């Protein structure tokens, strides 16, 4: 695993998130559930907790949008870049953006939202890309069965190095 230069991280245990624009590919309930599931991968192994809010500014602002979407990194249509996220910090820090030109799914068809969201939230919490092909934080997308999915060891060690381990 790798951390970003300077090891930016959140200095609090409860982190808020807000989804400001949903994808029409899935129901709002499916998106909410999948995003919560992605955060739970991290709260299961660290002392962090995540809370969804529905108004105001959250630590992690989440949106689905195509092409230009308000930052300096426009998306590129279907394929190529699927999503991106900022490292922890004020203002845009931690924000996660998903390319609406992708076909977001909960299966192996299209692009699996759980796997991509969990990867992006890794960035939002301070993980950089890993060179371990079995890691969630490997830069390229590869579908794996998400039934009972847990963080791979490399990512678990990376996030626990930043936030400590939750004793089960």
């Amino acid at each position, binding site marked *: 695993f790798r951390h970003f230069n300077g090891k930016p991280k959140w200095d609090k245990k409860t982190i808020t998130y807000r989804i400001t624009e949903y994808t029409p590919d899935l129901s709002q309930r499916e998106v909410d559930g999948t995003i919560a599931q992605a955060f739970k991968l991290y709260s299961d192994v660290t002392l962090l907790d995540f809370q969804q809010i529905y108004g105001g500014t959250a630590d992690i602002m989440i949106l689905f949008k195509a092409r230009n979407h308000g930052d300096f990194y426009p998306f590129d249509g279907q394929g190529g870049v*699927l999503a991106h996220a900022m490292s922890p910090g004020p203002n845009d820090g931690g924000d996660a953006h998903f390319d609406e030109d992708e076909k977001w799914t909960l299966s192996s068809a299209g*692009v699996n939202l759980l796997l991509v969201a969990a990867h992006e939230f890794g960035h939002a919490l301070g993980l950089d890309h890993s060179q371990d092909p079995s890691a969630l934080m490997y830069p390229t*997308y590869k579908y794996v069965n998400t039934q009972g999915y847990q963080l791979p060891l490399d990512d678990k060690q990376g996030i626990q190095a930043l936030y400590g381990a939750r004793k089960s």
Partner: protein
Amino acid sequence: APATSTVDQEKAEEYLKQFYSDPNAPSISGRRVKVQDFETILKKMQEFFGLEVTGKLDTNTIEVMKKPRCGVSDVSN
């Protein structure tokens, strides 16, 4: 025949600009990447992905570049 097309070359340059440009890397600003810079940066990319580090745009490297991926740079900055 050339191993790669002009299209592959240009797409590879765009890929390296997007995911492998950092303040300490050789300059890759401008429309085209200098050959020596291209090889240097391509080697970094090949090393990151565990590919054979040749500095050449071979088939395996092009295949990795075509995979869907995260938009965050592989070079921390």
